[in-house]
């Protein structure tokens, strides 16, 4: 793997390698010195075109624990409004010698473009692009579930909420199905893509029917503003039909866990009691996020630098 753009590009073996590596990285968190020299001398750029403090600091902590040099490049706003294009930003990073570029962008496919444009040579890690994907979130979710449920093979996982606009849902459906889980997405019909035949999951409009058959339930953030576009009539009605409260939570099997990628709308898609309950692994997800991002950075960047260039030089010298 050179880039991490889509959870769909990750094979089962690769996913397990990342999860196993993250397990080792996580053990580091319990030690007094939380730092490894693995990426010493490497530069990781956090290129964030959208505000996301949580994701950025998670990547920043991960890179620093691996001794990488970290540059935070916050370029909020679209290329058009900012006056500097994605291309110029990429060329700037290339000129500075970025080994890894962690990209968060409001436009679906922007990391894909960075990786394939030839503008820069570094590895590109998709840290969330538009309404497309957020693969490291899916990896940390899978990691968290695996720690609680063991192998995800045959496990029933329910993802609830604004699937249409959710990059978290897309990446999770792809990754969890690769890992053998049976995924069901639950949402009002307006918040599901119109044609989901290509998705390796089941769909349902009925949360109450899905919960008793769930080993894990992941609540997605739902923006209240969606109701202005008639995706649902009111926040209250959404909560009534698709929110997870203690009564609904009681329908879950005993060992089932509750996840949320954050930030939560307490009282909207998840009640405060559920978020703070013993089934909730939401805070743990954050801890695991650092371990997963360490694993991804390590696996993508720890090879010897510019191996291809070195090989060419050697060849020329011998010839």
């Amino acid at each position, binding site marked *: 793997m050179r880039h991490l753009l889509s959870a769909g590009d990750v094979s089962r073996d690769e996913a397990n390698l990342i999860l196993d590596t993250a397990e080792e990285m996580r053990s580091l968190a319990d030690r007094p010195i939380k730092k490894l020299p693995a990426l010493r001398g490497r530069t990781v750029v956090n290129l964030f075109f959208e505000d996301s403090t949580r994701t950025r600091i998670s990547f920043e902590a991960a890179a620093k624990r691996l001794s990488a040099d970290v540059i935070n490049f916050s370029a909020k706003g679209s290329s058009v409004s900012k006056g500097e294009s*994605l291309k110029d930003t990429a060329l700037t990073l290339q000129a500075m010698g970025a080994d890894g570029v962690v990209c968060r962008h409001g436009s679906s*496919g922007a990391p894909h*473009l960075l990786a394939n444009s030839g503008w820069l040579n570094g590895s590109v890690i998709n840290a969330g692009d538009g309404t497309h994907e957020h693969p490291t979130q899916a990896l940390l979710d899978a990691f968290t579930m695996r720690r609680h449920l063991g192998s995800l093979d045959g496990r029933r996982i329910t993802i609830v909420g604004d699937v249409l606009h959710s990059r978290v849902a897309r990446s999770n459906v792809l990754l969890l199905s690769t890992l053998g889980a049976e995924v069901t997405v639950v949402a009002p019909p307006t918040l599901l893509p119109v044609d989901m035949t290509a998705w390796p999951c089941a769909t349902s409009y009925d949360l109450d029917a899905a919960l008793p058959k769930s080993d894990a339930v992941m609540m997605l953030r739902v923006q209240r503003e969606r109701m202005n576009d008639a995706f649902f009539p009111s926040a209250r009605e959404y909560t009534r039909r698709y929110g997870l409260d203690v009564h609904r939570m009681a329908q879950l099997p005993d060992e089932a866990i509750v996840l949320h990628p954050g930030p939560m709308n307490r009282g909207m898609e998840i009640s405060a009691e559920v978020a703070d309950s013993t089934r909730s692994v939401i805070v743990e997800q954050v801890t695991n996020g650092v371990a997963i991002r360490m694993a991804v950075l390590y696996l993508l960047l720890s090879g010897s630098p510019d191996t291809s260039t070195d090989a060419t030089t050697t060849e020329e010298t011998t010839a």
Partner: protein
Amino acid sequence: MSPRPINTVLITGASIVGGEVADLLIDNGQIVAIGNDLGQNGLAQHGLAKEEVEVVEGKGLVALPGLVDLHTHLREPGREDAETVLTGTRAAALGGFTAVHAMANTDPVADTAGVVEQVWRLGREAGYCDVFPIGAVTVGLKGTQLAELGAMADSAARVRVFSDDGMCVWDAALMRRALEYVKAFGGVVAQHAQEPRLTQGAQMNEGALSGVLGLTGWPSVAEESIIARDILLNAHVGSKLHICHLSTKGSVAIVRAAKERGLDVTAEVTPHHLLLTEDLAASYNPVYKVNPPLRTREDVEAVREGLADGTIDIVATDHAPHPVEDKDCEWSAAAFGMTGLETALSVVQHAMIDTKVMTWAEVADRMSYRPAAIGQVTADHGQPLVVGAPANLTLVDPASQRTVVPGESASLSRNTPFDGMTLPGRVVATFLRGTPTVLDGKLAR
């Protein structure tokens, strides 16, 4: 402008609209003779000496009436960094066109007699093909107030086609009034059929793929609902309605059903919708971003069938040049549109002729006769190649193959979706009223 006007041309042994092989003698802007061995026997008859005549070898070539594009964005005035009337008409001539209709979404918008006359005059000065300005339906393309359609119709540009292309005349009452109003001067309203509320933020065809790619969908129904509405509105007021760049299977079915009922409507399809599919969006390369979006294989089959059976009247390029920076960026920030003048005939040959779905005679109908009739420019354009007709024609080498290289385009812009594709057919020569605009596949002047 031209250093040495060529008045008299003898085209030898070309296949006339894909049929009989004959010589064509052109003099003073007209076809004066069609027959065999005109070089031996025909010249004297017309009072011409051999040395006065420029001979163009037509062996193996198909002679077509000069192509007429009903949908071209020339970008001037306002976006001369993307295209000018001069560069756009050069590209048109290289594509075999002798007339283009220039869309109104310039800056300022072509919504007054002043702007349409400017574009018309620029076209005459360029001299590569005739430029017929299209007038905006509403002031500033804003969809709220009718532009001065009559003033544009009465201007030197003699506008007959009106369109807010790029924007849909979404207000049903306004569309009704526009259709009614243009009856006074025999105008036609060309609708960009896109229900705006159903396509807010739309980026690509809505379907299985848009959901996976996380790109906001542009559903077929947003096109089809407007087409259905406008056909009914037009039936009610008895005017002339033309549908721009029809792109879906459902749209073909609606137009077909309307025509079967005897309702008056004409429709166009673009070359890119005849060939390309939405799958290309998976690359996130914005060169494939266009409005209406590339659709599915099923839609492509349907528009081909519609074009072949005459449901879709014409091919129109929707040539939409954009500067590099508007395409060299992330998908959602990129402009919609593709260039198409220089590749249109090749794409049609590839999609319709080489697949044995259509003949060259039918291509002449869909790309010259009918667009000229809809645009009401038949005085000079869209006439069969017969003695006495204006010498607007193009010669195509159908056996030739070429690989599309964006940098070789005469357009100022490089946003061709056919980059790197090998396509059949090559325009060898184009004549505008007898004067070559293209010879040996290159601009003649």
